[in-house]
């Protein structure tokens, strides 16, 4: 054991002697995740410039616009029918929000037309408005269904809502949903970073073999197993440090609630890091050089993370792919994070953690088996 620690210390010294590695291993992942959390969380986002074309000019549409204004997310300019396209394309507004003609009427009938958003940037900037508008419309439709089609009742309920209890609506349209999704994607990215850093650390073994220092270590009273264990230990240690620093920094600078307790995220991600270390080992034992390893890292990590929902919610993918993703540990981690964020208890993700740990065990055994077969200690002599 003391030999493993001795080797591990030397590994750490070798890795962090290069100042750039401190950036690559620790600062970059932490900065990236906290930046992502900050940017994507609407609380701290800078105001979005929104142009509104109100084709309805009714009470409902006007109320909706002032509601949106009150959310504080949008800098609203009323645009004329002829000028909105120009405003969008010139970048004067980030997007134009178009309330269709007779929108109020349609609400009263319970069948509103879809609200239209015109933008050149696509997705990102319009996420919030889509979400808010959908919530607001839904709320109106709730009133509609309460009134059971009776215009009198609708008007009364509506007035109540707007005048007295408008707060109700705004709290209903809270930021939480959006924050959760943003946080989830940020953790997805963090998972990718952990995987890349683990594989990079594991493949340091290959570098040592190429540079022959490995030869020297093995000719001392050190067994191949001790040598590999030291690498695994360092690898695991680094990912734990990454996770802890990310959680600390996020706790310090990001004030909003990401919907998940730190210790839960810590346990979920730590269990995942064992899998990441094991994947790193697998890549190491199946590559004969650093360049093959690098290729394998690209070919394995990016696609498997895509499939597992680290980049986008898994639900947008075809069913077959979603099933395939069940065979990837990242999938179960993302799922655990989603569950916790959706208000699930920690015991609900126990199974996920167990599955992730089984993946790790399986990968480790696979790697160990391959090592045994290829008699890897001899391969680089």
């Amino acid at each position, binding site marked *: 054991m003391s030999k493993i620690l001795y080797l591990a210390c030397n590994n750490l010294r070798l890795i962090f002697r*290069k100042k750039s590695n401190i950036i690559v291993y620790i600062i970059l992942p932490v900065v990236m995740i906290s930046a992502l959390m900050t940017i994507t969380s609407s609380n701290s986002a800078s105001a979005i410039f929104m142009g509104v074309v109100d084709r309805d000019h009714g009470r409902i549409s006007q109320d909706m616009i002032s509601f949106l204004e009150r959310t504080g997310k949008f800098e609203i300019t009323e645009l004329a029918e002829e000028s909105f396209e120009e405003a969008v394309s010139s970048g004067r507004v980030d997007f134009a929000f178009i309330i269709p003609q007779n929108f109020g009427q349609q609400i009263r009938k319970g069948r509103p037309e879809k609200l239209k958003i015109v933008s050149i940037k696509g997705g990102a900037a319009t996420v919030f408005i889509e979400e808010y508008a959908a919530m607001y419309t839904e709320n109106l439709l709730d009133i509609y269904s309460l009134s059971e089609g009776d215009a009198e009742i609708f008007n009364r309920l509506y007035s109540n809502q707007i005048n007295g209890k408008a707060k109700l609506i705004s709290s209903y349209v809270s930021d939480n949903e959006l924050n959760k999704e943003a946080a989830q994607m940020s953790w997805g990215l963090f998972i990718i970073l952990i995987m890349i850093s683990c594989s990079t650390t594991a493949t340091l073994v290959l570098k040592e073999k190429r540079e022959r220092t490995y030869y*020297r270590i*093995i*000719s001392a*009273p050190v067994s191949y197993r001790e040598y590999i264990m030291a690498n695994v230990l360092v690898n695991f240690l680094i990912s734990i440090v990454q996770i802890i620093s990310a959680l600390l920094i996020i706790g310090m600078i990001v004030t909003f609630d990401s919907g998940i307790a730190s210790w839960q995220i810590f346990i979920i991600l730590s269990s995942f890091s064992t899998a990441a270390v094991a994947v790193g080992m697998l890549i190491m034992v199946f590559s004969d050089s650093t360049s093959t390893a690098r290729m394998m890292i690209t070919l394995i990590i990016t696609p498997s993370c895509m499939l597992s929902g680290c980049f986008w919610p898994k639900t947008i993918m075809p069913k077959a792919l979603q099933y395939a993703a069940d065979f990837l540990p990242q999938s179960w981690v993302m799922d655990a994070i989603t569950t916790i964020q959706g208000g699930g208890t920690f015991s609900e993700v126990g199974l996920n953690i167990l599955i992730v740990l089984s993946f790790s065990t399986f990968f480790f055994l696979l790697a160990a088996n391959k090592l045994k077969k290829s008699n890897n200690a001899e391969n680089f*002599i």
Partner: protein
Amino acid sequence: MNIVAIEGLTRKFGDIAAVDNMNLTIREGEIYGLLGPNGAGKSTLINILSGLLKMNSGKVELMGMDIRKGHNNLKKKIGVVPQDIAIYEDLTARENVNFFSGLYGCRGTELKQNVIEALAFVGLIENADKFPKAFSGGMKRRLNIACAIAHKPELIIMDEPTVGIDPQSRNHILESVKELNRRGSTIIYTSHYMEEIEAVCDRAGIIDHGKLIAEGTGDELKAIVSDKQFIIIGLENADGLDVSQLQEIDGIVNVLKDGNIIKIENTKVINNWDKIIRCIDMQGVRISNIESRTPTLETVFLTLTGRTLRD
């Protein structure tokens, strides 16, 4: 006492036997040279001795212990200087020696002391805190040695420690080998260079194709060929030459045909040049050049293997 005792050692890579049924003993306190051309099996033998490679068959005893029964205790007493420079570019010379000798279990002030001694020994003490990036090839070679000797091993195995360095560093290394030996270590020294082996080794073994083909002190080895001479004959066209007729001539030990050149190993005392020339002439082959070589250690090798030491 024998520090190394090898019996019937074989190690194969696929079909090639890198070490082929080798028998070899090395006595405590000697400097033993291993001489052989590229691919002779020197490094393979050393890797087996240092516990990096497994053998296919045979028996190896180091310091009286069978290496198959736990190499870890033995490894502590061995220092290996690998053929390729094996040091961390990102660590200073001192850190390199410190780390590698620490692997042998030494710690604290004793370790520090050993590191300083080793660095001083190879003449790198002034550069102890510099990174190997700034080192010349010779300095790196010397650091490569320091990393292997700081833990004061009983047996030091050096695999071509002087490859690709300047004469000054080479002399320094050769002197250190002798000094290490004076301080009590047994040394196995491999090289392509006959002069090096002659300069430092008490005894040497010549290996080729995984076999030990001759062994002895420098003089003993030279004695193998002292009564021999080599005749190198260039021919205009050797296709029609029947070598077996040459072999029948009295005094000829061996004939090698290499393209249009034939190399004849001949017994010095017998005067048979006329017969050789007549034999070639009668076969209708024209001679373009004749040259005779007196034996050197280099030719010992040629005699024994039919090959030169270096390509």
